């Protein structure tokens, strides 16, 4: 993935006479589809009791407002038989204040909306955690950016998948697997030309499943800002793990997953 990105950059360097311009393109609108953001996160050092699930529908591409879904009923049941009902608070956010996170335990999501039943099953993924954060000035691809490396030690005995979420003004998702780094101390990498001294960067390291890694991998390839060029990857419908039991074809977008999280904030020096 990283290699791909590097390619893009070289190509941009090469296209030194290229020129970008915002243009008006009329787009067709597809039927709204249900979007489920059911990310149960247990931040290390907290009890993980308060959990949120967000529901919305897709909206026309140029529209700014998110279309919340407010009339669904959501319940999560653990393998042990504990049930947690999520109640709509506002703007499509459903909450439960008594969630009991247990690592490696299986949970089932059940959701009813518009007389259609949706479900998904996942287990709670653990994470090793960040060892330390290193800052390097004069890094980045072009050598003039501040870069941050969040070091962690990969457990050698298992296959691991990680999601790093770097938040400054925007959110950046980085994905890692341990095929070539198994058992080593390695880092999550972030660099951005806009970060400056004094900025506060949120860094989250989340343990994820292989299936969710694959899902995010495709999802991320769809966000790329170079659709249409020779390095374009084919656009795809990003299907998650939530099944519409009533009508398979009317599948929802989004994912149900449970992750342990190591969350830090870093002030750029």
């Amino acid at each position: 993935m990283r290699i791909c990105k590097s390619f893009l950059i070289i190509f941009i360097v090469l296209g030194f006479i290229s020129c970008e311009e915002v243009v008006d393109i009329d787009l067709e609108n597809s039927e709204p589809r249900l979007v489920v953001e059911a990310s149960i996160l247990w931040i290390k050092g907290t009890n993980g009791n308060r959990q949120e699930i967000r529901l919305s529908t897709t909206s026309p591409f140029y529209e700014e407002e998110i279309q919340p879904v407010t009339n669904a009923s959501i319940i999560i049941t653990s393998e042990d038989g504990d049930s947690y009902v999520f109640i709509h608070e506002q703007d499509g956010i459903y909450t439960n204040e008594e969630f009991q996170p247990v690592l490696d335990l299986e949970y089932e999501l059940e959701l009813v909306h518009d007389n259609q039943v949706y479900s998904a099953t996942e287990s709670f993924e653990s994470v090793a955690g960040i060892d330390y954060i290193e800052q390097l000035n004069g890094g980045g691809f072009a050598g003039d950016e501040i870069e941050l490396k969040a070091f962690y030690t990969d457990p050698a005995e298992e296959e691991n998948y990680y999601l790093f979420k770097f938040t400054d003004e925007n959110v950046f998702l980085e994905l890692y697997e341990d095929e070539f780094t198994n058992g080593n101390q390695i880092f999550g990498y972030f660099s951005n030309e806009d970060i400056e001294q004094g900025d506060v960067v949120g860094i989250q390291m989340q343990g994820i499943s292989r299936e969710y890694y694959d899902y995010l991998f495709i999802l991320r390839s769809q966000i790329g800002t170079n659709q249409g060029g020779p390095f374009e990857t084919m656009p795809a419908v990003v299907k998650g793990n939530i099944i519409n039991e009533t009508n398979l074809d009317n599948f929802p977008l989004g994912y149900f997953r449970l992750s342990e999280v190591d969350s830090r904030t870093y002030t750029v020096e």
Partner: protein
Amino acid sequence: MRLLSFLLLVILPVMTNAQEYTLSGRVIDNSSNETLIGVNLIFPDLSTGVVTNDYGYYSIKLPPGKHRVILTYIGYANAEEEVNISENMQQNFQLSEASESLDEVVITSDIEALNIKKPEMSVNRLSIGTIKKIPVVFGEVDVVRSLLLLPGVSNAGEGSSGFNVRGGAVDQNLILLDEATIYNSSHLFGLFSVFNPDAIKDLKLYKGGIPAEYGGRVSSVLDIYQRDGNSREFKMQGGIGAISSRLLAEGPIVKDKGSFLVGARSSYAHLFLKLTDNDNSAYFYDLNTKLSYELDESNKLLLSGYFGRDVFNISQNFENTYGNAVLNLRWNHVFSDNIFTNLSAIYSDYYYGLNLNFVGFNWDSGIRNLNLKYDFNHYISEDFALKYGIHNTYYKFNPGEIAPIDESSGINYFKLNDRYALENALYISAEHKFSEKLSAEYGARLSNFFRLGQDDFNTYVNDEPVAYNPRNGVYSEADILESRNVSRGKSLESFTNLEPRLAIAYNFAEDQSLKVSYNRMAQYLHLISNTSSPTPLDVWTPSGPYIKPQLLDQYAIGYFRNFENGDYSLEVESFYKDIRNRIDYIDGANLIANNAIERVVLNGEARAYGLELLLRKNEGRFTGWLAYTLSRSEQRTPGRNSQESGINNGNWYKTNFDKPHDLTITASYDLNENWDLNANFIYQTGLATTFPTAQYEYEGVNIPVYGVRNEDRLPSYHRLDLSATYYPKKNRGRKLQSSWNFGIYNAYNRQNAYSISFRENMDTGRNEAVRLTLFGIIPSVTYNFKF
């Protein structure tokens, strides 16, 4: 066997002809002694003729007596000579390059008629002289860019690598440089091609009706021959351009017997450095070499080599090197006047290396092959000639090796398993003139491919390396059942294909003919790439137990006509092709450093059809052509069974290089002795792409939802290029010949969309569409010299 007996039946009657003798020899350039490929030798009184082969050799059976022979060749003055046949004899002919000071022999008979009568169709030939006149970006003469001006040839946009022929993919082109396979034809990611124009003698592009001597790729054959070098006198030539400079030296080793040629080309390393204001560099270089030595009249040795590399270096963090290397030793031998043979031993290598300092690893990958070929041209009678031969190729694929750059790197050493394969082919092809009006080229190639054993060969449940989840309709990598080492002496899987080839020309009226062709071809190698246009990093993978060979059937029909004694010509062709087992990739397929690539690919199919029109003006001060192509190129990958959805719901979708309309006008005007003027105009439908139809927010990120694959289009592409070449007056009568080329690419500065991308504006948070234009108007100056 059936084929053989059929051929024997056909041959026997023509072999029992009356008393005839063989005239054979070579046609050479008079100033350099270099052999000329594709020269027409016409015997107007006998209304017969022959064309020189790839080594400038010809052989023809003639009745005794005195005969006139006329020799014609593009860019050369026609010549007329007389031969007196009383026995088998050898004769070499010499031709001189056309120039205005020489009085050209005026030909009244119909020269081009021979081409009209030949069954060869769907073939484009460009002389290097024509290529050098075509205006190009940055003024850099380029073989592949010139091919794009022909009907049926296109690419996936400016700055994309390779070329697409008749709706075929880039990896389906067989690119041969002196018979050696070139795996990547591009420099600087497709801005330029790897062929140094000064070192090239001749090139031919077969788009269809591909003769049986070629195989291994399903879409086209680009056959390029390097020059042998001047064996009469020492010469140098070169050029200084905006991006690169060239220098080529050639001369005799033994006068009239042996020659050498060394050509080098390099771009300027610091070009990008100044513009980006840091430690970056991007450059390429090429080295072409050739040695040729004529042992005697019937034996000649040729040694040719090519070495090219692209190097990118970005702020010491990233270093990328890639390129081709080939070495070829050939022995031309003539048996008994009418059998010309060529034995080749060829080594080809494509290397890709990457050094990522900031992640801490080196990456190496590549493909190597060793190829032995023995080809025979057998001139049996004036109406019948055979070509036959045997080809063997051994491949070694290195899909990748990752090594940490130092001890502190967090990367472990990892080697993806090498793959090995053996490809064999046996072919026979006849060129047969049935009558004055009807001729045909027919034959067959028997190809056979062994995927050899390797380490860590994987097996899967039900032999299905791709798993499917029917609940959410998602394909994913299947779990590996068992991984075992198989010895290289064992075959994991083998394939055998009989590839019939047929082309017929019917010369139904004066200057007009109708031609039809059919060819089947098999391709055993696949370039693993799921971007719109291949990148140098893409790896080749052999067919095997899980990836089947691509099989093509192509049908073409064409109408050909010469007007005004060949001053104008018209070619109209229509084609349909169908390719089985075209691979496609599951969503989210990770192709980089994937040791089990079969886990992300599915076998699908592809098809393309179209109509091509080429109107040329061949003679006079004003020359040029108009080419128009109307075509469609699609592919689909249905599910493996009725439960599965397939890729893109199993529906046909347009390929990334599908361009329904493609119009090119190329014109050249010879103003006077000092100035040549040239222009191109190009109009093409925008490339197929997919636009979003909705959006949503997930994990704080805005995600677009895409519509049906490749149903949208970029805005149409058009541009005008102009160039003028100036030959100074002082050139006359001196050794140093110089010229200046002034060019303007995209003269009216059309902002052609290279891509339309969609993104969230970081400041406003709104989604917007962004058009990226690669090349606006670009002026250029190039200085060329020769002495």
